[in-house]
């Protein structure tokens, strides 16, 4: 109540309490029912056992939103879990939006409304912040008061039984006071909806997420804390990338980026100019820029000429531009102006080290003046030092120039701006869709899956997996199951010699090691003999193995060995993998991942380019280039296959052989649920 009143809320507040006559000078009501007017929002902070009754009363009263602070729900298991379910169904029945339970409340600085335990209302600003950890959120709000960072709204998400991060992100996108969206998340409730909304929202506003539980031990801690299974790290990384979301790995980074996004315009491209008064920090900034994917701009001839005219001869005129340790404010001003005018430069970084007698504060003002006038290009500063630059730093902050204590952090902020500019440009172009597969393909696959389930297996035989892949138009080496030597011969005749024979047993992973594979068989007699020998050899190694027979496969000419795979993430659905294939996959780990949900052909091309395999495919050291178009097509088809078949949980094609024309899947593995 004190926070609500202290926060300056301009609407009416009705305290409801069984015992009190009045609270902080406002008359208290014994129940929501007795409140004389309509109520928009109810903040519920009663013991868990009474929450359901209070929620029902609010529902009948026509309350639109509930913020349930009380704990004692899903997080405690058993009874709490049932209580939460009931709470959700009450809110659904009366059509009330639910925040929490087990949360620390909400803040809106523009209304203004402070329905939290945060001791002080944060400064108003353009940052919306949603936190799955209420305590962390409140701590950050308190800290923000010392840094001058302002917020438009803050929500402690709690158990996310009703409204979750996706709802709030979606809403913040529409909020005129919000320019940047920040989230602290331990898990995502509905991965696919998250991805969908992220794609939309990041076209308009940057979203920065810090996702806790990135390490194995961290993930364990997060799942025991939230009770939801953490999706895999690769899936989160892919989701953030595909959704255009920035991922921060520390709270520091989260706010470094937020500061830049909330104050600076977006650059056109990634070319940065560094202005410094000392060589060392300039070089560090240059290194950092290259690491972060920024280009250190080559200045135009005109700019260099202008600088030469205006700077002392000892100054360095090429990027980074060093105006020397004794630089008076005017030198900074003129250099900034010239750099700002150069069309080859997209963003600016102003560095300063406190050398003897330098008027840091005055320079800070000049930098801010320049930016205020021009505003075209993003500008961040790194004024290094402590005591000597304290005043200057606070001038920059107050005048809306992000200032960081190190060049690396400043560069990281500019790099994020540039990356986001690219996200925006990319989303403006309509992506080419992956083609929709023929509906008969799914029926065919489901039919095969059904047979496998009847057999009480989860792993498909090679011949079955090939049949599914072929139904979706994925080119495979012809593969059929033979259950006797004679059948093998008949199939070999049909496919055409030479053929390969492989043991058909879902339990055996490394077939070659146990004499389960014979290659290049070119006569009926060889096939017959190989069949018998394979079965006998495998029996010797694995007396318990279920042997379904032997697969007869068309022999393929050598090509570039690639791997294409699918795993199903619990939060985000199928994850497509692509990389260099063959037996060294685990060693080389040259793989890229994308979520298949909404995956476009352009995403697929980008994915291919991310790998070393790409260099190889373009034709490495005299090799002819491979059929990139067909590869992209096959990756699209695999992605669609995974989307169409919810029963498929894992798929591995290793190797896929890429040729100058066309591709062929040689070994297809599938696991179904």
């Amino acid at each position, binding site marked *: 109540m004190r926070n609500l009143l202290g926060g300056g809320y301009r609407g009416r507040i009705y305290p409801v309490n069984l015992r009190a006559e009045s609270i902080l000078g406002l008359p208290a009501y014994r129940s929501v029912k007795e409140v004389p007017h309509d109520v928009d929002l109810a903040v519920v902070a009663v013991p868990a056992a009474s929450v359901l009754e209070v929620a029902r009363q609010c529902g009948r009263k026509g309350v639109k939103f509930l913020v349930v602070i009380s704990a004692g729900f*899903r997080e405690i*298991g058993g009874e709490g879990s049932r209580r939460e379910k009931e709470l959700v169904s009450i809110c659904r029945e009366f059509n009330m939006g639910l925040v929490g339970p087990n949360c620390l409340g909400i803040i809106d600085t523009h209304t203004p409304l402070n329905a939290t335990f945060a001791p002080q209302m944060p400064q108003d600003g353009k940052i919306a912040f949603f936190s799955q950890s209420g305590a962390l959120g409140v701590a950050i709000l308190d800290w923000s008061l010392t840094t001058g960072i302002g917020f438009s709204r803050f929500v402690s998400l709690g158990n996310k039984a009703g409204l979750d991060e996706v709802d709030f992100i979606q809403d913040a996108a529409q909020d005129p006071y919000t320019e940047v969206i920040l989230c602290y998340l331990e898990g995502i409730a509905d991965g696919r909806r998250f991805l969908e909304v992220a794609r939309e929202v990041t076209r308009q506003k940057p979203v920065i997420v810090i996702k806790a539980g990135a390490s194995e031990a961290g993930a*364990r801690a997060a799942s025991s804390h*939230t*009770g939801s299974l953490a999706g895999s790290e690769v899936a989160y990384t892919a989701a953030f990338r595909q959704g255009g979301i920035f991922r921060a790995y520390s709270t520091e980074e989260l706010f470094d980026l937020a500061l830049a996004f909330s104050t600076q315009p977006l650059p056109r491209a990634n070319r940065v100019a560094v202005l410094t008064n000392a060589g060392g920090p300039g070089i560090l900034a240059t290194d950092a820029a290259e690491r972060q994917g920024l280009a250190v701009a080559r200045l135009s001839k005109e700019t260099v000429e202008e600088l030469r005219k205006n700077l002392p001869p000892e100054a360095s005129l090429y990027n980074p531009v060093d105006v020397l340790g004794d630089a008076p404010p005017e030198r900074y001003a003129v250099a900034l102006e010239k750099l700002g005018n150069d069309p080859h430069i997209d963003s600016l970084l102003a560095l300063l080290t406190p050398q003897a007698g330098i008027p840091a504060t005055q320079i800070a003002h000049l930098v801010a003046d320049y930016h205020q006038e021009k505003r075209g290009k993003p500008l961040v500063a790194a004024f290094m030092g402590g005591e000597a630059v304290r005043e200057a730093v606070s001038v920059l902050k107050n005048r809306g120039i992000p200032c960081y204590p190190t060049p690396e952090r400043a560069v990281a902020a500019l790099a994020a701006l540039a990356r986001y500019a690219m996200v925006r440009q990319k989303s403006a172009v309509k992506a080419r869709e992956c083609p929709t597969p023929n509906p008969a393909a799914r029926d065919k696959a489901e039919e095969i899956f059904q047979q496998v389930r009847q057999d*009480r297996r989860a792993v498909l035989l090679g011949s079955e997996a090939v049949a599914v892949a072929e139904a979706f138009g994925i080119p495979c080496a012809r593969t059929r199951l033979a*259950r006797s030597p004679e059948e093998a011969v008949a199939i070999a005749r049909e496919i055409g010699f030479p053929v390969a024979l492989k043991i058909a047993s879902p339990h055996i992973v490394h077939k070659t090691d146990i004499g389960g594979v014979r290659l290049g068989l070119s006569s009926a007699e060889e096939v017959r003999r190989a069949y018998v020998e394979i079965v006998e050899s495998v029996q010797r190694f694995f007396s318990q193995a279920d042997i379904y027979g032997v697969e007869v496969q068309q022999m393929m000419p050598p090509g570039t060995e690639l791997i294409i795979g699918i795993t199903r993430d*619990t939060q985000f659905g199928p994850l497509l993998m692509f990389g260099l294939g063959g037996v060294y996959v685990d060693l080389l780990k040259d793989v890229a991942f994308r979520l298949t949900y909404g995956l476009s052909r352009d995403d697929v091309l980008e994915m291919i380019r991310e790998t070393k395999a790409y260099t190889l495919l373009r034709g490495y050291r005299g090799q002819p280039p491979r059929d990139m178009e067909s590869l992209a097509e096959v990756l699209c088809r695999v992605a669609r296959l995974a989307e169409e078949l919810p029963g498929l949980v894992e798929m591995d094609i290793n190797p896929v052989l890429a040729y100058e024309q066309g591709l062929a899947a040689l070994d297809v593995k599938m*696991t179904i649920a």
Partner: protein
Amino acid sequence: VAKVRNVYVIGPSGSGKTALCAALALELKEAGYKVAYFKPVGAGGDTPDEDAVLLRELLGMELPVEKIVPFNSSAFYLWRYEPPGTFVDRVKEAYEAVAEGADVVVIGGAPSPYHLASLGLDAIGIAQLFKPLVLTVHRVFNDLSIDVAIFYQEYLRTHQVAVQGAILNHVPRTLLDKARDVYRRVLEDRGYRVLGIIPQRPEIALPTVREFAEVLDAEVLAGEESVNRVVEDIVVGAMTLESAMRYFRRVPNKAVITGGDRADLALAALETNTSALVLTGGLYPEGRVLSQAEEKGVPVLLTNYDTYAAVEQLRLITRKIRPGDQRSLQLVRENFREYCAYRDILEAIKD
């Protein structure tokens, strides 16, 4: 007084004798015969012979189990050795009581045909005593299983036992075609009849979560309503989270055994087809894990055994059809009708 007919079912341990006896007895009963069950050599120790308990109930017999099973064998039964005749007389006497008023007596074989040979009560001895119609039943693992079947037939025939034929049981799907084409031919070429080729049905006589709870001395923390779910397999959760999903997804209807502190693995298991979550070491799980289990309707068992000891303990659960397991009985009867020459067998008994 009409002649009592005897059918004797023998086979190696684990070949499915009990299931066949049950199916046969129920079929005969339905055909209007008065059927009794007799098991001359039981496997019982401290507890009564489980086969006799089951058949007694199915047939509504009034005799107590110890009258149906006159002798219990053990691996050290020879401390009780007496000259052969005594035991034979005792078995005969018990048989008279069982056969009283019956049209057909189904005689269940001992765990193996050679049990109690020293007392003259092995399969040959029993067959010579009661002149039954003999059916042999064999679990098929591979080609060698057929050699075992042939060996049985030849031995019985040498001793002038009226062996009716062999039933190939639990035939894995991978060997079904081979059994029908090759195994049958091999047996018939030697003059033996194949009376049935029954495919493997892993769902028969699976243990339930309740049995897991009993043998683990476990407390059921959630999902109480699902304790009758069957468990097909066990997966020990001791891997990293990333690899866990791979294993969990491949095994349906499993019990996952893991420490109570591994919330990540417990939750991963709940995302897949899991019959029960067994938490070991007496470590009480996070409330949210229980919430999730509750939502998914998966029983959570908390045991004080550590993971290794729990797995050892679970070995005690055997696959036996228990009285009241209607589902398994139904399957067993279906198998008998569908995959065995059951009319021929009934005809042979009638003659």
